[in-house]
């Protein structure tokens, strides 16, 4: 397939289908609605299923069932809808099901929800935050691979801008290393053999009346630690000789990248670090930048959430300034004045003066 001009939502649905996703379900909500619409168009064309669920609770349940059969399946919503799904999102992790889900968020205020989660117990999800549609196509496919590799949910953190921007993309299936067969998936075939399967979140096994939660949770935690070591991703430019480095993610980082390049061309010694994975967070990149820069500025479209992770990376080696803030359109969909190169420049200049912005 050649290059196509696609809206973000359509590109993401097409990328998911190219990655082998055959089941999607969701409940309409701006700005996620179009993602659901495009899955509804594309999945039947390849023999897949898309269900318009009656609520987010049911959407995540349906995805759970589809995943249990070994099929690549996904769901999504906005942060508000994902709030409803939290109980399932944590329990599905302990069931070790490879869920991919989308947050077409209303801005960046769901950073804590994405990286800490609102569910119960110990669990972590890999969170990929594309800055543009081209990257979203790549990361959506990576998400399905990583979910299967780790048997752990992976989230794509997008927003209104990502979902509704048209960009030219090349739609092709990305090849990843071969994954082990899903011998854990249910198909009914082992009934009556004594070897039937039980996909469950509590470490229950057949013919054992007692569950062993402690050893089960320890094993899962070991996997989480391995993911944390292996999967941190980031992009950076001009960090080596920068006086200040700006940290930003998602579509906001796209503006930051543009402005930093512009300022560099004028000889201003500023760089940027863009976490591509919000979890695991690229702490090491922050730590090593903190050894050489005079300050670290955090540019996020919220009252200050990622800044906590930045501080954990910097660990007091340099001052950390907040230069982002709450910024929205009249409807609250998360397109605000901050999505503007001039505004971003004003904020970065503020950081260079050693000042913070009111969130």
């Amino acid at each position, binding site marked *: 397939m050649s290059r196509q001009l696609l809206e973000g939502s359509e590109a993401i649905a097409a990328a998911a289908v190219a990655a082998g996703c055959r089941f999607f379900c969701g409940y309409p909500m701006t700005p996620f609605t179009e993602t659901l619409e495009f899955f509804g168009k594309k999945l039947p064309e390849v023999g897949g299923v898309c269900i318009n669920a009656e609520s987010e609770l049911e959407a995540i349940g349906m995805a759970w*069932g589809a995943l249990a059969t070994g099929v690549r399946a996904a769901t999504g919503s906005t942060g508000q809808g994902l709030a409803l799904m939290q109980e399932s999102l944590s329990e599905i992790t302990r069931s070790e099901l490879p869920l991919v889900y989308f947050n077409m968020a209303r801005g960046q205020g769901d950073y804590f929800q994405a990286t800490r989660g609102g569910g119960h117990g110990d669990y972590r999800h890999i969170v990929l935050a594309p800055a543009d549609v081209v990257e979203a196509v790549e990361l959506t496919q990576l998400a399905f691979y990583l979910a299967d590799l780790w048997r752990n949910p992976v989230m794509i953190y997008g927003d209104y801008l990502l979902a509704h921007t048209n960009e030219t993309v090349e739609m092709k299936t990305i090849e990843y290393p071969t994954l082990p067969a899903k011998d854990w998936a249910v198909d009914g075939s082992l009934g009556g053999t*004594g070897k*039937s399967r039980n996909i469950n979140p509590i470490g*229950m096994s057949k013919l054992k009346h007692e569950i062993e939660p402690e050893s089960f949770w320890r094993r899962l935690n070991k996997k989480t630690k391995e993911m944390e070591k292996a999967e941190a991703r980031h992009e950076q430019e001009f960090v080596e000789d920068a006086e200040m480095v700006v940290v930003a993610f998602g579509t906001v980082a796209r503006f930051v990248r543009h402005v930093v390049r512009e300022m560099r061309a004028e000889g201003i010694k500023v760089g940027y670090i863009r976490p591509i994975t919000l979890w695991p967070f690229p702490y090491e990149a922050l730590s090593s930048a903190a050894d050489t820069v005079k300050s670290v500025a955090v540019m996020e479209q919220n009252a200050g959430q990622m800044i906590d992770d930045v501080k954990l990376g910097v660990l007091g080696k340099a001052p950390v300034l907040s230069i982002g803030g709450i910024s929205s359109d009249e409807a609250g969909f998360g397109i605000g004045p901050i999505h503007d190169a001039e505004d971003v420049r004003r904020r970065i200049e503020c950081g260079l003066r050693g000042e913070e912005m009111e969130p």
Partner: protein
Amino acid sequence: MSNDAKVRQNIISTDVVPEVPSEQLIPFKPDLLLSEDHHLCPGCGEPTAVRMMLEAIQELGLAQKAIGVVGIGCYTALTGVIDTDLVQALHGRAPSVATGVKRMLPDSLTYGLQGDGDMVSEGLQEVIHTAARGENVTIILLNNGVFGETGGHMTASTVVGQRTKNTLDGRDAEEHGHPILISEMIAGLSGAAYVARCGVFNASQTVHTKRILKKAFQTQIDKKGFSFVEILTMCPTGWFVPVIEGPGYLENVLGEIHQLGEIKSCD
């Protein structure tokens, strides 16, 4: 007196303690049951109901097609001995999970197993929407009118007058509302093809329960739409009723409101 015996004596305030045979009288176990051992209380109706379900699956020759989606309640402890593929769902969410399974494996026999607290209280909308969509799955409700696992608390199907841990003087319609008759509610939906209520309070009704389950599974195999079986089960420990009086209480108290019979059939 052992601790267990003391506890038991406190729970069961009766002079009539049934003789429990020390040897197994009938050495028979369905193929789909890995063991007859379980941790549920004496007099519980759930093991009997689940046994009937497994026998029905086996007798229909569907053992290698069956996938169960199990809710959370006392019966969840039986997932260790049910020898069909299983997916453990969250409390209330089994019908949605079953939907996902069935849509991906249309030729499987997908069944859901939930209690009344799980289905009628926590997850009412799930079962209603799944029935309304006409999902080709069989959902089985084990209805004992209480949250057995938490120790006998009121659910949405507790009948008026029934004593529970949080309606100690009996469910009062004015204060606690009326029970939901879930089978009748589901039967009213166009997507529901087969709806029946049965009970395991005596031998003939237990055998009848298996017949009903077979009809429901056959409805699914024939791709006729949503099938629903409500099985009334005893929970003497959650009812403040002596074990030996459990079956009679089920038949006469719960059964009077949740009336037995085929409520909807596609024949």
